[in-house]
């Protein structure tokens, strides 16, 4: 019951935060003077192409860019009727990309879920690698296991991602016949999902996951090791040993449970840093994620496209923090029973 109430409460605060974020995103995108269309109109007028100007002027009224900013925001969100009635984000209309001259929904389409897939894979990789290695490094601290894992970890932290990507592509292709670039074989692009397509995607995911996840994994491993070492000195660990527990059981049941909290709290932070951190990697690896599109959209002041992508990243982050908060409450009775009568 406590849990359910908390989850519902947390969901509503998330919606509220999302609303605030949407205002911030809209304002910040509109901060630089001019917009995509007025820049284009000025350019066309300078070169005397009046036909283009008319089209641009038409788009301006079509997308309500001639209205005051607050009205533009409300129309974009779908709280206020635009030229064609209520047509905003909450109605599922993501707007028009001026740069690509296509609806935003069409441009981002596949890349949305591919982004989610790539980043989820990277996060799973981070946890799968950091968890056992961090615990092992702490349990065998100051031995060769600890030193080796720290060395490899720092190497992973220090190597630039794009370089790692290129190296892995080369050797992965040479020795394991891994595909280079992209997230699926070109023949499957635009095809409906099938078994073969999924296999192709999984195969293509190996290198990007490794590249994006390495630095996160080594950072998290070191953090977990430090947390575990702190916990290992606590008296309750001694109690567990005095009970006659075997070391592996004892480690995972007691100190790991306590050291795990900051680990869980990290889920929310990992997502945005992975999405923004993987832009360069996506460009180098030719991944059809949202990163490269965001880069173009921001450069050309393509406001609806960039605003939509930013909203999407914000949503991912907020969902991540919500999940980690709820997990924390489930994991830690001290948080769950805060304020309960003794």
């Amino acid at each position, binding site marked *: 019951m406590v849990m359910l109430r908390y989850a519902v409460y947390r969901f509503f605060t998330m919606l509220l935060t999302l609303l605030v974020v949407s205002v911030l995103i809209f304002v910040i995108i509109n901060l630089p003077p001019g917009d995509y269309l007025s820049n284009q109109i000025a350019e066309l007028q300078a070169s005397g192409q009046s036909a283009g100007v008319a089209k641009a002027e038409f788009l301006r009224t079509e997308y309500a860019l001639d209205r005051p900013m607050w009205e533009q925001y409300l129309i974009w969100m779908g709280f206020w009727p635009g030229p064609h009635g209520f047509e905003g984000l909450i109605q599922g209309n993501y707007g028009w990309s001026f740069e690509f001259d296509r609806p935003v929904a069409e441009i981002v389409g596949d890349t949305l879920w591919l982004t989610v897939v790539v980043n989820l894979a990277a996060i799973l990789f981070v946890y799968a690698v950091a968890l056992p290695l961090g615990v092992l490094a702490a349990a065998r601290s100051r031995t060769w296991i600890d030193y080796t894992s720290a060395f490899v970890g720092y190497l992973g932290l220090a190597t630039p991602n794009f370089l790692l990507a290129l190296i892995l592509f080369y050797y992965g292709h040479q020795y394991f016949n891994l595909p280079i670039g992209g997230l699926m074989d070109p023949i499957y692009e635009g095809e409906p999902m099938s078994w073969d397509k999924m296999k192709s995607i999984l195969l293509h995911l190996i290198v990007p996951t490794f590249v994006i996840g390495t630095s996160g994994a080594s950072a998290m491993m070191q953090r977990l090791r430090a947390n575990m070492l702190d916990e290992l000195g*606590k*008296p309750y660990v001694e*109690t567990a040993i005095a009970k*006659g527990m075997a070391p592996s059981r004892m480690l995972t049941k*007691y100190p790991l*449970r306590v050291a795990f909290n900051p680990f869980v709290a990290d889920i929310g932070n990992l997502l945005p840093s992975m999405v923004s951190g993987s832009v360069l990697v996506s460009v180098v690896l030719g991944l059809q994620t949202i990163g490269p599109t965001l880069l173009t959209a921001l450069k050309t002041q393509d406001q609806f496209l960039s605003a939509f992508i930013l909203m999407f990243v914000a949503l991912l982050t907020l969902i991540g923090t919500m999940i980690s908060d709820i997990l924390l409450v489930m994991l830690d*009775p001290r948080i769950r029973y805060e304020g309960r009568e003794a």
Partner: protein
Amino acid sequence: MTALLSVRDLSIGFGAGEAVVQGVSFDVEAGQTLALVGESGSGKTITCRAALRILPRTAQIRSGTITLNDSKGLEDLTAISERQMRDIRGNRVSMIFQEPMRSLSPLHKIGNQVSEVLWLHRGASEAQARKEVLTQFERVGFPDPQRAYDSYPFELSGGMRQRAMIAMAMVAKPELLIADEPTTALDVTTQAQVLGLIKELQRETGMALILVTHDLGVVANMAEQVVVMHKGRVMESGAAAPILTTPAHPYTQQLFNAAPQIPDKEAVGIPMPSEDLILQMNSVSKTYTMRSSKGWQGDRLIHACRGVDLNLARGKTLAIVGESGSGKTTAARIALGAEPPDPGGEVLFRTAPDADPITVHHMTRAQRTAFQRKAQMVFQDPYSSLSPRMRIQDAMTEPLEIHKIGLPAEQRDKAAEMLQRVGLNADMLKRYPHAFSGGQRQRLSIARAMMLDPQLIVCDEPTSALDVSVQEQILTLLENLQDSLKLSYFFISHDLAVVARIADEVAVMRRGLVVEQAPPETLFYNPHHPYTKALIAAQPEPDINRPIDLNLVALGAGSPDSWDDAFRFTDSVIPSLVEMEPGHKVRCHV
């Protein structure tokens, strides 16, 4: 070899350093209690942990044997494999630790942690274990075993957690229990009850006990055999009665002389003089509001102090005694102006007999500065009250710098002078705190408090983190300083024996109320209030003929509802302090 556990020639060392335990031998017979007595650094804890091989990673057993000879067979605990050792831990030999607050995992239910012993050693099913653990919980005195089983440690008090630890240690019915300072972190009445419980369980099950402690009073109450350790060696060992009555070794004698005792001779205390008061607390109350996290529940009020009236005469010592949560620290914080009292209360401070009183909580800026120079504090924990990153010199001259007193050279001279006053050398000024022992650090804290030439020093349990012999030195230092500088002390303690020695007047607090107040001689010889009686009864005396009277403890240490009609109080009906004889006030209905 017939002893249950026999330790022969045990030596333990860290890395390549000199051995910290050297040639220790002793025997524990079945059903017997052996006390390992010593001060910090004596090697008593390392010795008892060696029996279960729970040692820091860098420590190794260098020589000697530890042999367990119980009903399940004969084992050489220093030679068997780690795997075999695990079968012994918690099963044939179990252990209780010092800090019940931290010795249980905060994230697992108590029942789970205790049942685990049975899962591990008996292969019991969840339901079987639960049944057995519930019986054990009832045995160790949980009023509601079911509820305790499903509680988390943070939901229980310290005493209850230690009971859970005892249940955990006992549930597999070991033949030997090792208790490492099991009651040091507990209040004195709780300590008495926990010791009583251990003794009772021991009588019932016939298990043997190794009790590690620094407190001779605990030894006198519990032990049949005593081993006195000092710097890793055994100083004296043998049956408890002769050692406690006529200690042969000078070190044991020294320990006895250092242990303060509650006086029990008839004496009439001199009441605190009523003129020339340096500090006056008039009807000081403090109520905290605990915000409820649930909107529909009202906030809860916590009365930390209720109508406290206390006077401290110049050059005297006023002590407040009470258990954790009694409001003694809150009272001290209010006296120092660190917290405002509820409206209606006031604290007055006089810098000189004929000076106008300063109202501590309504001071002008100049008055506040003057007050801060005249009133200083010495804290409980000498390890955390000195910044590890500041040299002693900087820590000591800092108060002078803040108040802009003197040139740097003069400040240094003053610091050197104060160090000598507290019995340290002036050439220690350049060192960092980590280079000092606990007792030396407490001297440093006192020296720092003295830097501004204060008139009033608030001492918050200044000796409770120290060994008895060091405690003795610090108390002597405080007394000498008081005599030579005419200092006034506001002294907070939970230890009646310390208070008996240093105080001119004692106020006993419980639930924010002063329940009894008198000069120590009067109070200890002729206590009226059941709570005071319980406190005195619970204090373990290093005298084998005066065991703790658990009945008296139980009578007074319970909640105020369980007291005699004459003393009972509730949130709404509070009896007033009545003067029974000159200078002896008791809170009771007349």
